[in-house]
Structures are given as C-alpha cells and as structure tokens.
C-alpha cells in the first residue's frame, strides 16, 4: 500500500513538476492536467502511475481521413474516470488489446483496455515496461501506422530522472490510438494538426522537434501551425533526412493501399513494384476500354435521336432499372448484329485492334463479350461490375 501511495505521491509531484515546467505550453495542457491531478488523488487502490500523454487521433479507417485535435476536457475527464475504474492488471493483459484490429474496434468503443498503463511503480520499471511494450508493438506499428497518415512513434527513453507519467492511449470516439507504445517521460506530445498531410513544412518542423531537448513545452507548437510532428523511432536514425524519408515512404505506402482497394484482384499483392505494375495495367485497360467503347458508339451512332436525351440520361443514371431494360432491348431489337453469345472467347484473340476498316465484325463479338461481362457485373452493383469484375475477367480472356 505504501508503495502505491508513494507512487501516487510521485505521480502528483511529477504532475506538479510538469505543470510548472509547462508554463509556456498552451493552456490546453495545463487545463488538461488539472483533472488528472484531481483524479489521481482518487486513484487509491489502483497502482497506476499517471503517465499521460496526448496521442494523435485518427478516424482509423480511411487513410486520408482528416485528423482532429485532441479533444476537450470533459472527454479527458471521462478517460481519467475510466482509468480509475481500471484495476491495474498485468501489463501483458494490457498489451493484448493493442493488436491492430482491436485497436480499430476499441477506438470506437472507448474501452479501458486501450490504456497503456504502467502498473508497476517506479520510474525505471515503468519505463522498462513501456520499452518492452514499445518493442512488442514495433511489429504492429506498421499496421498502426498505416491507419493513420503519420505514424509518429515516440522514444521511451529509460531516463532515471524522468517524472512519472502514465502512458495513456486516450481514446475518444474519433481517436485511434497510434503511439500505443508512446510513453516517454520528458518530452513528446506530438499532436497532429488537421490538414497537415500535404504540408512540406511538416518535415522541417518535425526534425526540429526531435532535436529539441526535454522541454515538452517547446515540443508543443501553437495549435494553429499545420504540420506533423515527427519523432524518431527507437533504434532509428534521427537524421532529419531520414525522418523526412520515412514520412514520405509512409505516405506512399498508404496511398498504395488505397489503390489496392481500387484495382481488382490486388488484395494479395505485397510489394510496391508488383502493385504498380498492376495499377499500370489496369489504367491501360481502362483507357483502351474507353477507346473501344467510343469506337463502338461511332459505328452505332448515326441513328441517335435528339429526343432520347432524357431517356438516356435517366437510364444511365438509374442503372439498375436501366440495365435490365437495356439488356432486354439489346438482344431483341438488333438484327444486323446477330447476337451469338457462344462465339467468342476463342475468336476474340484473333481480332485485330480496333481497325476501322472492318468495324462490324469485331464490334459484334466484342460487344457480346462486354454484354456478358456486364451481366455478370450487374448482379452486384453495376458500376463495380463494370470497372472491376469486367476488366478482371476480360484480362484473362482476351487482349484488346
């Protein structure tokens, strides 16, 4: 018990120290610390040191989501209350919830297990635990990082003089806990500002922030500046160039992930080079598809009627109803182009490439192929079927 009380005393003193040292920090932090101070008194039986640091937030799902500032005091107080309710279990138990999918879920649920806590007392032990924690989550860090545009991890240096703080991965509804390992004594609260991703000033500021010393006050910039704080990961170079490189690489990999969802059949592909090849192929086939379709329109078109404008737009826009009607119309009404769905996959490969000298024959066959593809795609959502399924299938069967 006494150890716990000592911890509490230490925590309170550390908090007060922090409060004093953060005179120049913005009022946000000082106001945030107050509930902690008030709550830490009630921590009582739970032997939790109070390392608090603010984390970066993320919507968690889409990589390009905007990021919001850390939130107001009431939510923070809520967190603190949860903290008090959390009877300090094993650190391993707390480590468990930090795998990525749980983080994703938990971020929406505000569960207590999201908190990283040092249940053990003592500075060194706490920091070592958080270090171990850091190491464990280096592996999951990539995944974590991926879900937010800037994975900024902090070093948790085992500094003996550092005041006790609890590493908390604060989590409100919009918050996705990024730096779950983040527990560093002296400095860092990296905050992510909204609309910072594209800011090239981010890197320079980030480098400066890393080079700064223990003053956490200095590491907190004015909230109005739009840039990303970058922290060096443990065991990696703190060179400004490498930091900028890492930020850039993370941005690129995040965008590659987005593209992976767009391009069909790329879920299992790992590796940028192969992925880029797939993307290039897909864009090429899409462009060729548009060319081919416009060629088709050129041959069909002379009969288009001005009055059909409205009908056309309605049918195109309301694709589900239109598709059935169209497909019903197509085979029925078109005598010059005999529809023989069975002809193709063998014949397609022999057809030359959009040679305007003999449009009718290739048009027919490819048209039917496209119709088949579209029918396949229409079972699901039509647009998806057009772009994704259609192209995917078509790649195997023929080359445009």
């Amino acid at each position, binding site marked *: 018990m006494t150890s716990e009380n000592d911890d509490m005393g230490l925590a309170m003193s550390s908090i007060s120290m922090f409060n004093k040292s953060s005179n120049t920090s913005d009022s946000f932090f000082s106001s945030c610390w107050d509930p902690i101070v008030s709550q830490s008194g009630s921590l009582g039986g739970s032997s939790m040191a109070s390392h608090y640091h603010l984390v970066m937030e993320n919507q968690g799902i889409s990589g390009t989501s905007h990021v919001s500032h850390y939130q107001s005091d009431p939510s923070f107080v809520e967190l603190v209350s949860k903290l008090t309710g959390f009877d300090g279990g094993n650190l391993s138990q707390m480590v468990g919830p930090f795998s990525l999918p749980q983080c994703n879920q938990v971020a929406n649920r505000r569960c207590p297990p999201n908190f990283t806590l040092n249940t053990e007392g003592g500075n060194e032990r706490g920091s070592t635990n958080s270090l171990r924690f850091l190491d464990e989550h280096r592996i999951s860090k990539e995944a974590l990082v991926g879900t937010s545009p800037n994975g900024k991890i902090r070093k948790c240096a085992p500094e003996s003089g550092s005041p006790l703080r609890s590493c908390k991965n604060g989590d409100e509804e919009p918050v996705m806990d990024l730096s779950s390992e983040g527990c560093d004594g002296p400095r860092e609260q990296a905050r992510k500002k909204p609309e910072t991703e594209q800011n090239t000033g981010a890197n320079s500021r980030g480098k400066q922030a890393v080079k700064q010393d223990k003053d956490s006050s200095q590491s907190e910039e004015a909230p109005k500046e739009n840039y990303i704080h970058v922290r060096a990961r443990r065991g990696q170079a703190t060179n400004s160039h490498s930091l900028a490189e890492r930020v850039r690489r993370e941005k690129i990999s995040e965008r590659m992930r987005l593209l992976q969802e767009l391009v069909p059949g790329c879920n299992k592909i790992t590796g940028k080079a192969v992925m880029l090849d797939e993307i290039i192929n897909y864009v090429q086939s899409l462009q060729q598809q548009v060319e081919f379709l416009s060629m088709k329109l050129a041959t069909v078109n002379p009969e288009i009627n001005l009055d059909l404008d409205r009908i056309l*737009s309605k049918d195109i826009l309301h694709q589900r109803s239109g598709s059935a009607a169209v497909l019903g119309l197509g085979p029925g009404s078109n005598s010059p182009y005999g529809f023989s769905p069975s002809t193709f996959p063998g014949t397609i490969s022999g057809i030359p490439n959009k040679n305007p000298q003999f449009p009718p024959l290739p048009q027919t066959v490819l048209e039917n192929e496209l119709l088949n593809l579209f029918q396949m795609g229409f079972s699901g959502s039509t647009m998806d079927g057009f772009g994704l399924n259609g192209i995917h299938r078509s790649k195997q069967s023929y080359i445009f």
Partner: protein
Amino acid sequence: MDLQNLNPSSLKSRFTARFLRALTEINAPKTISSSSPREIFQRYRRIKVAADKSMAYSVRSRRIWSRATLWRLRTRSRSRRLVSFGRRASVKTRTTASHGKENKEHHGAVLGVQAEELRELVPGGEAMDLCNLLDETAHYIKCLTTQGFCVYMGGLLCEGCC
C-alpha cells in the same frame, strides 16, 4: 451505390449530361448514314475527345490530371487552327517535361521505371512526385471507370433505340 445514382451532382450525372450533349452535337449533322471507314474513324475520334472532355469538365480543375487533359485538348485544337500557337504549345510541353524530369530524378529513385510508366499514362503526371501521382491515379481510375461505364451504357441505349 443507389445514392450515387440519384445524386444529381455526382460525377456520373455530370459526365453523362455533358457527354450526351456532345454526342448529339456530333451526330446531328450526320443525317445521312455514312458508313465509310474514314467517317467512322473521324466520328470515333470526335466521340473519344468528347468523352475525355466531358470527363475533364466534370472534374473541373480540382485535379491535376483534369487540368492537364483540358489543357491538352485546348492546345491541340488551337494548334490545329493556328500554326503560330503551336510553337507556344510545344514550348510549354517542353518546360513541363523538363520540370517533371527533375522531379523524377529527385523523387522517383525507388520505383523509377513503373513510376515513369504511370506518369505517361496519367495525364499531367510528368510533373508530379510519386505521392501526388498515386493520389491522382486513384481519382483517375475512378473517373475512368465512370467514363467507360457511361459511354458503354450510352452505346447500348443508342443501339437499342435505333
């Protein structure tokens, strides 16, 4: 998906409206069905240009690739009419290309070959670093699928109504 269909200001509806208008313009003068290959080819090119133009106009200038497409279309039409402007256009292309090459050397070290190919594919991609290029590619893919879909549906409906 349904919401997207009904949204009057969605990409699909914007593109479709423009494209249909262009289509009717293209087809209006040709009351006599001319099935000579040359005519068909000419019409094909006009339709393709109309499709690209409609797509680029639907996106306005929000994207680099749309701006590049619009610029390219304008300079092409201009250079066809006036020879003097062609020189200016070529100068412009040269500057953008050189600027793009500098960027390429600086940024594209890791995936140089594929990035270059992608740059050639995506309009306006020469002057972008890999990060923005991937962004533009994602949007471009989305718009290409919309474009292809609308052109296809237009074709189906046209032949269905003839």
